[in-house]
């Protein structure tokens, strides 16, 4: 059953060297604090999964923690490329990483299949697209009724998924609202799930019947980390720190600047700093 604990303990108990891990979030609710804790704890040889790997994945790759990246779009949203990832792919710095590259449709379907307990997903995709030729995990299935050839990809089933959500209640149920992305699927597809939340409330009595709620028995660990999505945002709590995304482009463009920034803002920091980082970004309630 779900544990309420510190982020430090949750990462220590749920993420291990060599794991396959997803830190999911689709622009909204990206679990930055959790990824930073994983960096601080120095995990190695990770296979990291995300549809839209962005800053935290650039950081983990730059810190040499990543063996393999499974993804569909690796960019700094609205800004440009991921410079640490480029350095790893183009120059093997700090080390070589393996890529398993898909389209968004494939990744979304693969998470959905993982949540649904299926071994694979089928969809109409990759027609004429080059990824089929460079990714052995893109295969085909023939519809037994129409003969149409459909694309197939293996289900995504992480050892552990980290997400950030707006709220948990005291029983351990988790609420995600707004742009919900693929987080429900990422949690249900995983063996273990760690959720950082903006706040823990008494109950969800005022929550909409059909809102995206993860029952407590689908979650391994809940950690209250206000601001834990920064510089991403938490709808209803604080807005996106667009300036931080623009800044990252400069920070990540130089290996030494990157290293110094990571030392100061991640290695020497802790989950509590996130509350300060959103001080000027809070939404009017």
């Amino acid at each position, binding site marked *: 059953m779900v544990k309420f604990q510190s982020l430090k303990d949750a990462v220590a108990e749920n993420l291990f060297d060599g794991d396959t891990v997803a830190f999911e979030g689709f622009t909204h609710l990206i679990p930055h604090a959790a990824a930073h804790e994983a960096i601080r704890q120095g995990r190695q040889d990770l296979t990291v999964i995300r549809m839209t790997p962005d800053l935290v994945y650039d950081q983990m790759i730059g810190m040499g923690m990543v063996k393999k990246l499974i993804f569909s779009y690796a960019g700094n949203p609205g800004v440009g490329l991921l410079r640490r990832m*480029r350095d790893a792919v183009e120059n093997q710095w700090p080390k070589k990483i393996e890529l398993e*590259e898909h389209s968004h449709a494939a990744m979304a379907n693969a998470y959905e299949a993982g949540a649904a307990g299926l071994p694979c997903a089928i969809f*109409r995709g990759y027609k*004429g*697209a*080059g990824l089929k030729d*460079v990714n052995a995990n893109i295969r085909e299935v023939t519809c037994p009724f129409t003969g149409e050839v459909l694309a197939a990809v293996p289900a995504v089933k992480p050892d552990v998924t980290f997400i950030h959500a707006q709220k948990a209640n005291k029983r351990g149920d988790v609420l995600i609202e*707004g742009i919900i*992305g693929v987080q429900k699927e990422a949690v249900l597809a995983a063996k273990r799930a760690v959720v950082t939340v903006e706040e823990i409330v008494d109950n969800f009595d005022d929550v909409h019947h059909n809102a995206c709620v993860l029952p407590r028995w689908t979650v391994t660990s809940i950690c209250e980390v206000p601001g834990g999505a920064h510089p991403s945002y938490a709808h209803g709590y604080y807005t996106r720190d667009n300036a931080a995304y623009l800044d990252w482009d400069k920070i990540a463009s130089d290996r030494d600047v990157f290293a110094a920034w990571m030392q100061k803002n991640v290695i020497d920091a802790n989950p509590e700093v996130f509350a300060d980082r959103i001080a000027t970004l809070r939404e009017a309630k």
Partner: protein
Amino acid sequence: MDLDFTPNEMMTIAAARALSNDDICFVGIGAPSAACNVARLTHAPDITLIYESGTIGTAPDILPLSIGDGELCDTAVTTVSVPEMFRYWLQGGRVTVGFLGAAQLDKFGNINTTVIGDYDNPSIRLPGGGGAPEIASSCGEIFITMKQTKRGMVEAIDFFTSFGHGAGGNAREKLGITTKGPSLLITDLAVWKPDLETREFTVTSLHPGVTLDRVQETCGWMVKCSADVETTVRPTELELTTLRDLQARTDAAHSGAAA
């Protein structure tokens, strides 16, 4: 009001004009987002804008920096999960127009946003396809916008991130794709449409003041031009004001936040 305008503004406004009130439009970031919202704020108030983050029927007052900004959700008719977006809405054939940008584009509308160079040893690792491979095959038709450069508009792209008209002709049909594919290319210099037979992009309209030579100078393939090439209608005052106001609101909102 001064009706001078930049090539970028002309590109955005020409793209906006291609959209109609009944379109269900899958929007990317950058130029497409501006074009779609200018259309919505001028001649197509009922256009439906969908962003792949799950927001359906959005009407943002400012342009989002990412495809998942909170403004998109706040103004949407509904916000669905990303798997649902790609299954019911894109693959389900609900989208009439998909907008794509390109790092490399060839004359048949094939797009590369994956790598420059060899896939396994690229000289530049680009972000990858994201939604593009299935946007290109599932939307009713595809509009492409990009600024012309010889590096961008090339004879042969390095990687087929998304399929346009392949090697031309009925290449889509041969692959069993039933949608129209790239039907419009709008650059900062011209409007292009595919030749009905070959499917090669052909200049149908030059933006005001642009010569065909200038189009060729910034394009890596041998440019073909329709027999009756026109001049793109200049931005109207309403169009230009709408775009500039939108950009001003956007700049003000985005410069406000700081870490």
